[in-house]
C-alpha cells in the first residue's frame, strides 16, 4: 500500500482542488476569553477592542498570557486553579507587567517614577495604557501625558537625549522588516536590534537624562555595525534592480524584434 501511496494521493488531490480553497475560512480560532468578552457590552466588553489595537495583540500576547486562566475552556477559564489572576491592584501593576518585562521593571523601580509608586507616582499603564498597550516609543514622552503629573521640562530633556538613537533603531527596524519581507535572512540582525532596543528602552525607564546621554555612544556603535550590514544588502538590491531593469528592457526589445521580423514575413507573403 505504502508503495502506491503517492500515486493514490494524486487523484484525491485533483478531486479536491475545487473544494480545497474554501476551507481556509475557518483557520484562525480565538480564545474563549475573546469569544465571551467580545460579545459583552460595558466595561466587561471594553478590553477586547482595545487589545486588538495593542502591541501585545500584534505580537501574539493574549488575555491569558497576563491574566492567567484557561483560554480553551469556558467553564474553567477564570478559575484560580487554572492560574487565573484577574485584575491587579494599581500598586501591583509593575510587578504584574514585570513578570515578562524583567529588565524594564528593574530600571523603573530604581527610577524616580518607581520610587514614587504608592504615593501618586506612575506605573506601567499610566503611560502605556492598559489593554490597548501602546508600543514603547518616544511618542509616549509628550507634553500632554507627562504634564498630567509634573512639569514637561525634564521629560523634554529626556526625549531629546533619546530621540537620535530611537530614530536610528526605528529606521533600522523598518529597513530590516522590509528586507525580511523580500526573503533576506535578517534574523541575526533583527535579534541584535531587538536586544539593543530593549536595553535602550530599559535605560530610559530610569528617567535619568545623564545616564541616557553617557550610554548613547555605546548603543550608537553597536547599531552602526547593523546599519552597515543593512546598507550592504540595500546596495546589492539596487544592483539587482539595475540588472533586472536591463533584462526586462532586453526581453521587451527581443519581443519587438521578433514581431518586426514577423511583420516583414507578413509583407513578403502578402499576409493580412
Amino acid at each position, binding site marked *: 500500500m505504502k508503495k502506491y*501511496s*503517492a*500515486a*493514490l*494521493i*494524486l487523484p*484525491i*488531490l*485533483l478531486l*479536491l*482542488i*475545487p*473544494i*480545497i*480553497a*474554501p*476551507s*481556509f*475560512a*475557518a*483557520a*484562525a*480560532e480565538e480564545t474563549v476569553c475573546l469569544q465571551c468578552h467580545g460579545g459583552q457590552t460595558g466595561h466587561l466588553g471594553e478590553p477586547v477592542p482595545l487589545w486588538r489595537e495593542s502591541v501585545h495583540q500584534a505580537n*501574539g500576547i493574549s488575555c491569558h498570557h497576563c491574566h492567567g486562566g484557561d483560554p480553551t475552556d469556558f467553564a474553567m477559564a477564570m478559575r484560580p486553579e487554572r492560574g487565573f489572576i484577574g485584575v491587579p491592584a494599581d500598586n501591583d501593576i509593575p510587578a504584574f507587567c514585570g513578570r515578562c518585562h524583567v529588565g524594564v521593571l528593574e530600571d523603573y523601580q530604581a527610577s524616580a517614577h518607581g520610587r514614587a509608586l504608592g504615593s501618586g507616582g506612575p506605573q506601567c499603564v499610566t503611560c502605556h495604557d492598559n489593554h490597548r498597550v501602546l508600543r514603547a516609543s518616544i511618542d509616549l514622552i509628550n507634553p500632554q501625558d507627562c504634564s498630567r503629573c509634573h512639569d514637561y521640562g525634564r521629560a523634554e530633556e529626556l526625549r531629546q537625549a533619546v530621540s537620535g538613537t530611537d530614530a536610528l533603531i526605528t529606521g533600522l527596524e523598518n529597513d530590516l522588516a522590509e528586507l*525580511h*519581507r*523580500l*526573503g*533576506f*535572512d535578517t534574523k541575526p540582525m533583527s535579534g541584535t536590534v531587538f536586544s539593543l532596543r530593549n536595553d535602550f528602552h530599559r535605560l530610559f525607564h530610569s528617567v535619568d537624562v545623564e545616564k541616557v546621554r553617557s550610554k548613547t555612544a555605546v548603543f550608537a556603535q553597536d547599531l552602526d555595525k547593523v546599519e552597515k550590514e543593512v546598507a550592504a544588502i540595500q546596495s546589492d538590491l539596487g544592483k*539587482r*534592480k539595475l*540588472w*533586472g*531593469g536591463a*533584462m*526586462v528592457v532586453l*526581453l*521587451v526589445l*527581443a*519581443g*519587438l524584434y*521578433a*514581431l518586426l*521580423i*514577423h511583420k516583414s*514575413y*507578413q509583407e513578403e*507573403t502578402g*499576409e*493580412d
Partner: protein
Amino acid sequence: MSLFKGLMDYLDVRLGVRDLIRQNLTGYLVPRRANFFYTLGAVLLALFSLQFVTGLLLLIHYRPDAANAFASVQSIMNDVPYGWLVRYAHVVGSNIIVIALLLHMLSVLFMASYKKPRELTWLVGFIAFNLALALCLTGYLLPWSQLSYWATTVATDAAGAIPVVGEMTVRFLRGGAMVGEATLGRFFALHVMGLPLLLGAVIGLHLFLMRRAGISRPPFGPDYEPPAPLTTFRHEDHPDGIPFFPHYVTKDLAGVFFFLAALAWVIFFAPVLFIPPTALEPADPFVTPPHIKPEWYFLWAYQTLKIFPSKVVGLGAQGVFMTLLAVLPFLDIGPERRPAHRPLFVACYSLGILLMVALSIWGHYS
C-alpha cells in the same frame, strides 16, 4: 561543404530529417489570421520548461524534511549564489503559468476552438490545467513555512467533508493525523516526480491531438464560414496559410519574450507580489496565523463557499461548474464558432468572467 550541411546530410540519410522539417516546420502551414492568443501554447511550453529547469536547480539545495526544509529554502535565498533568482523565478513562474493557462483557456472558449473535432484536445488540456494547479498546491508545502503548514492543514482538512471516507482520506493525504514529516515526503514526491511526469505526458498528448487535428482557424473575418460537419477524420489544412517556421515561430517567440519580460519585472521589482508574509516564517504547529487565504486563483472558490448557506451545496455548485467546463465540447455541439453569431454564449462567457473576478475580489477583501 559546410559542417552544418554535412551533419544534415548524415541525419537525412538515416532519419529523413529534411522531410521531417518540411512536414512539421517549413511546409507546415498555420492559419494566416492566427492572433496573439495562439502564441499562448508556446508561451506555456517555455514557462513549463523554465519551471523544470529552476525546479531542478532548487532540488540541488532543497532538503525535504521538516527539520531542514525551511532552513534550506532560507539558505537558497541567502547563501546560494543566485539562489534567490532561481527561487523567485520558480515561485513567480508558477503564478505566471496560471495566468497564461487562464488566458489560453479563455481564448479557446471565446473562439470555440474546443468544438468538434477538438473535444479531446480540450478535455486533455483541462486535465493539464488541473495538474498544474495540483503542482502549485503540492509546491506550496515544500518551503515548510507557516503559510505552507497551515494552508496544507486546511486544504487536506477539506477532505474530511467527504461523507463516509472523509476522515480516512485526510489521514491518507497527510500520512498521519496531522500535517508533518510524512505529508512533506508525499507532497515532495508528487511535486518533483509524480506530477511533472504526468503533466509532461498530458502536455505531450495535448500537442499530439492538436497536431493531429490541425490548428483551428480563427472564427473571424468576412471569409470565415462554419465548416461542414465531419463524418470521417480529416486534418484541418490551411493551404493559404503561412509556414510555421520561420514565419509563425517569430510571433510565438515575441509572445514568449513578452511573458518572460513580465516574469523578470515581477522577479526584480515586485518579487513578493505572490508571497504573503506568512510564507517567510517557519512552520509552527502551535501558532495559527490569522487571515489564511488561498492563492489568488482559488479565491473565487473560497468566496463561493462562504456565500452558500451549506458547505455541501457550495461544494456541489463548484463541482457542477468544473464538470460543465470539462465536458462543454460534448454539450455545445453546434458548428457555429463566430462569437457574433453566438450571443447567448458570449453573454454567459462575459458574465462568467465578471462573476469570477468579482468573487475573487470579494474573497480577497472579505
